[in-house]
C-alpha cells in the first residue's frame, strides 16, 4: 500500500462515494453550530420539510453575540441589549429545541467559544471530520482530525445529509524543527509561520504541522497553531496524534470509555503520516530562531519579531507590496523605522478561540502577578474561552491576580475578537490582542489591532507598550 499522509488517511476514511471528476461525498462526524451562521440553514430545512440526518452529531452553542459582562449574563438571553443579536441567540435556542439538538445555553457553565468547548467536552476526537460554519474550525485539527469551516448552505447540506461535497486538497508539511527559546509560545510559532509563507501560502492545501517544537506543545498550544492555519490560507490544519492528544481526551464527557476507549486509542495510533509519505510542499522553520512576534499591519502576515522595527515602504522594490505597507502604516498610525517595543497601546484583549484556554490564561497571569496595568491603558480585559475555563482559572486564583492588577475578568464568549457584542475598539484605538485577525475594523471601526501571544499581551498591559517578555524573564 502506498504511503499516506495524515490528511490522506482522514480523507480516505470518510469518502462515501467519489465521482469521476474527483469530487467526493465526504462523511461528517461532528458538526458544531453557533448562532450567526446557522439560522438560514435551519430555516432551509424547515422550508424543504427536511429533518436532520443525525441530530446527535451536532453540538450547538451561542458565542459570537453573547455579552461578556456579569450584569448582562445569567438570566438567559434577557441581558442581550442589541435586539438583533438577541433574536439570533433566541433563534438558535428555538432551532435546537425544535430539531432536538444538544445546545449549551448562555447560562450553562459549559457555554463558551465553539472551538474551545468542542475539544473541552471531548466532542472533537482524533480521526473525526469536524465542520462548523466558521473558518476557525481548523482549530480541531490539533487532535489529528480533519476540520474546516463551511458556509451556511453547506451547514444546511451537512445537517440534511451528514455529508459535504468536496474535492481533495493538496498536502503541505510545515515542520518546526528543534526547540523554541523560553518565552516563545505556540502563538509566536504560528505567527512566524504565517510571516514565512504568507496569508495565501496555504491556499488549496491541508497543512500538517510537525517537528519537535510542535510535538513539544500542549494540546492547547497545538489548537492555537491549527486555529491560525486559516490565516495562512489553509482551510484545514492538523497535527498527528500522540500521547499528549490521548491524555487530553481521556475522561472528557463525550469521550469513549471502557472497552470502546481502548479500541479507539488503538485506532488513533495510526493517525500519523507514514514515514515515507509524500507531501506536495514541505516548509521547514528553525524553532530556535523564532522570537516573540507582534503584527504591525492589517494582515496576519504583516508580522515581525519584537526586536524589529516597523518596515519602510521605500525599502520594498515591488510597487504593490510597497503600497500595501504604506496603506497599512497609515491605517495603523505607525511610522516606518519605529521600534516595535516602542509602540504604546490603549487596550489589551486576552481571549478568542486562538488564546482563551486555561494555559493561555495561566501564561498571562504569570506576567500580571504582582503588577499593575499601566496608566495609559484604558481597558485590559481577560475573556476566558468557556465557563469551564473561567471556573478552573478561578479555582487557581488567577481571576484575583488579574483583578488586582487592574484587568477586567469577563464572562466567556468571542467578545472583542470580532466586536459583534458591546466589546470593541473606538476609532484610532490601539489594541494588543491575542485573537487571530488584525484586519481593518475587525475589532471595531477604525480600531488598530496587534496580534500577540497571551504573555506578550499581558506584558503590554503592564508596561503600556510592547515589550520583549524574554527580558522580563531575565529580570525576574
Amino acid at each position, binding site marked *: 500500500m502506498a504511503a499516506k499522509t495524515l490528511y490522506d488517511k482522514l480523507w480516505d476514511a470518510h469518502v462515501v*462515494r467519489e465521482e469521476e471528476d474527483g469530487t467526493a461525498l465526504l*462523511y461528517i462526524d461532528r458538526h458544531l453550530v453557533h448562532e450567526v451562521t446557522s439560522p*438560514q440553514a435551519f430555516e432551509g430545512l424547515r422550508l*424543504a420539510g427536511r429533518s436532520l440526518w443525525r441530530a446527535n452529531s451536532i453540538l450547538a452553542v451561542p458565542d459570537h453575540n453573547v455579552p461578556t459582562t456579569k450584569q448582562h449574563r445569567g438570566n438567559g438571553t434577557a441581558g442581550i441589549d442589541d435586539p438583533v443579536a438577541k433574536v439570533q441567540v433566541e433563534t438558535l435556542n428555538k432551532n435546537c429545541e425544535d430539531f432536538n439538538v444538544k445546545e449549551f445555553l448562555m447560562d450553562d457553565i459549559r457555554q463558551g467559544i465553539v472551538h474551545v468547548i468542542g475539544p473541552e467536552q471531548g466532542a472533537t476526537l482524533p480521526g473525526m471530520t469536524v465542520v462548523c460554519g466558521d473558518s476557525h474550525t481548523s482549530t480541531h485539527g490539533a487532535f489529528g482530525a480533519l476540520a474546516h469551516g463551511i458556509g451556511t448552505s453547506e451547514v*444546511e447540506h451537512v445537517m440534511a445529509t451528514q455529508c459535504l*461535497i468536496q474535492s481533495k486538497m493538496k498536502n503541505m508539511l510545515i515542520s518546526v524543527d528543534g526547540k523554541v527559546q523560553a518565552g516563545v509560545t505556540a502563538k509566536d510559532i504560528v505567527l512566524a509561520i504565517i510571516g514565512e509563507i504568507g496569508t495565501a501560502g496555504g491556499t488549496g492545501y491541508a497543512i500538517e504541522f510537525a517537528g519537535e517544537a510542535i510535538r513539544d506543545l500542549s494540546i492547547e498550544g497545538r489548537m492555537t497553531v491549527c486555529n491560525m492555519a486559516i490565516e495562512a490560507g489553509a482551510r484545514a490544519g492538523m497535527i498527528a496524534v500522540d500521547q499528549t492528544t490521548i491524555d487530553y481526551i481521556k475522561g472528557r464527557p463525550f469521550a*469513549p470509555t471502557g472497552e*470502546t476507549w481502548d479500541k479507539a486509542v488503538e485506532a488513533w495510533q495510526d493517525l500519523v503520516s507514514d514515514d515515507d509519505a509524500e507531501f506536495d510542499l514541505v516548509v521547514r522553520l528553525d524553532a530556535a530562531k523564532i522570537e516573540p512576534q507582534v503584527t504591525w499591519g492589517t494582515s496576519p502576515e504583516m508580522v515581525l519579531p519584537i526586536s524589529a522595527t516597523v518596515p519602510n515602504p521605500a525599502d520594498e522594490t515591488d510597487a504593490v507590496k510597497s503600497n500595501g505597507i504604506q496603506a497599512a502604516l497609515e491605517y495603523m498610525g505607525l511610522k516606518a523605522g519605529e521600534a516595535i517595543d516602542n509602540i504604546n497601546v490603549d487596550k489589551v484583549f486576552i481571549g478568542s478561540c486562538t488564546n482563551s484556554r486555561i494555559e493561555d490564561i495561566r501564561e498571562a497571569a504569570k506576567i500580571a502577578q504582582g503588577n499593575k496595568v499601566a496608566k495609559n491603558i484604558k481597558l485590559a480585559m481577560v475573556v476566558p474561552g468557556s465557563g469551564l475555563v473561567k471556573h478552573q482559572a478561578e479555582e487557581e486564583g488567577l481571576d484575583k491576580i488579574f483583578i488586582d492588577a487592574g484587568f477586567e475578568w469577563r464572562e466567556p464568549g468571542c467578545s472583542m475578537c470580532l466586536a459583534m457584542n458591546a466589546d470593541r475598539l473606538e476609532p484610532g484605538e490601539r489594541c494588543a490582542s491575542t485573537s487571530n485577525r488584525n484586519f481593518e475594523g475587525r475589532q471595531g471601526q477604525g480600531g488598530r489591532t496587534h496580534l500577540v501571544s497571551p504573555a506578550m499581551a499581558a506584558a503590554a498591559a503592564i508596561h503600556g507598550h510592547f515589550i520583549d517578555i524574554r527580558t522580563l524573564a531575565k529580570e525576574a
Partner: protein
Amino acid sequence: MEKFTVHKGIVVPLDRANVDTDAIIPKQYLKSVKKSGFGPTLFDDWRYKVAGEPGMDHSKRELHKDFVLNQARYQGGSILLARENFGCGSSREHAVWALTDYGFRTIIAPSYADIFFNNSFKNGLLPIVLSEQIVDKIFSEIASSDAYELTIDLEKQEVITPTGETFAFEVDAFRKHCMLNGLDDIGLTLQHADDIRAYEEKRKQEAPWLFAS
C-alpha cells in the same frame, strides 16, 4: 425543494423593466436570521406608503392601493409577469426568497440578470424566458380579461393560455431535471442516501465511538 411539474395559477402583471433586487427586497430586511418571512416585504417600496423596518407588523401598514400586488383580482397570484432584465442589482438571494415566500413559483420575462436567474433555480422558482412580443401579448390579454390564469408545463416546456394557446420555452436540461424532481444540492446528495447509510453501517463497526453522541 418542492417539485415543479405542472403549475396553474393567477398571473400578476408587473409592467416594469429592470426590476432590481433593491426593489424586490430593500436592504433593511437583510439583517434577518431567516430565509423565510420576506413575503410581506416583497416590493416593499412599491407596496407600502411609508418605508418599513424589520420586525414591524406589515399587515397594519398603509398600502399603495394601485400597486398590482394590492389589487383584489391578483390576490393569490403565483406567476409574475414582467419586462426585460428582471432581478438586476445585487446578488442577494433574499430577492428570490421574498418572491417564493410570497407564493410565486414562476416568473415570465423577456430576460433576467444572471445571478438572479441562477439563484431562482436553487430555490425552486422557475424563471421563464419568452420573447418581448409574447410577453406583450400576455400583458394585453390580462388587461382585457377579469381573471387570467396560465398553466406552466415544465415537462413539455410550454406555457398554456386560457384559450389553449401554447408558447414553448427553453430550459437547461440539468436544471429541468432538478426542478422536475425537486432536487437541489441536498436533494442530489440524498439520492445517494443508501450509500451514506451503508458507509455509516460499516463505520459503526470500525469506529463505534464516532456515533455515540
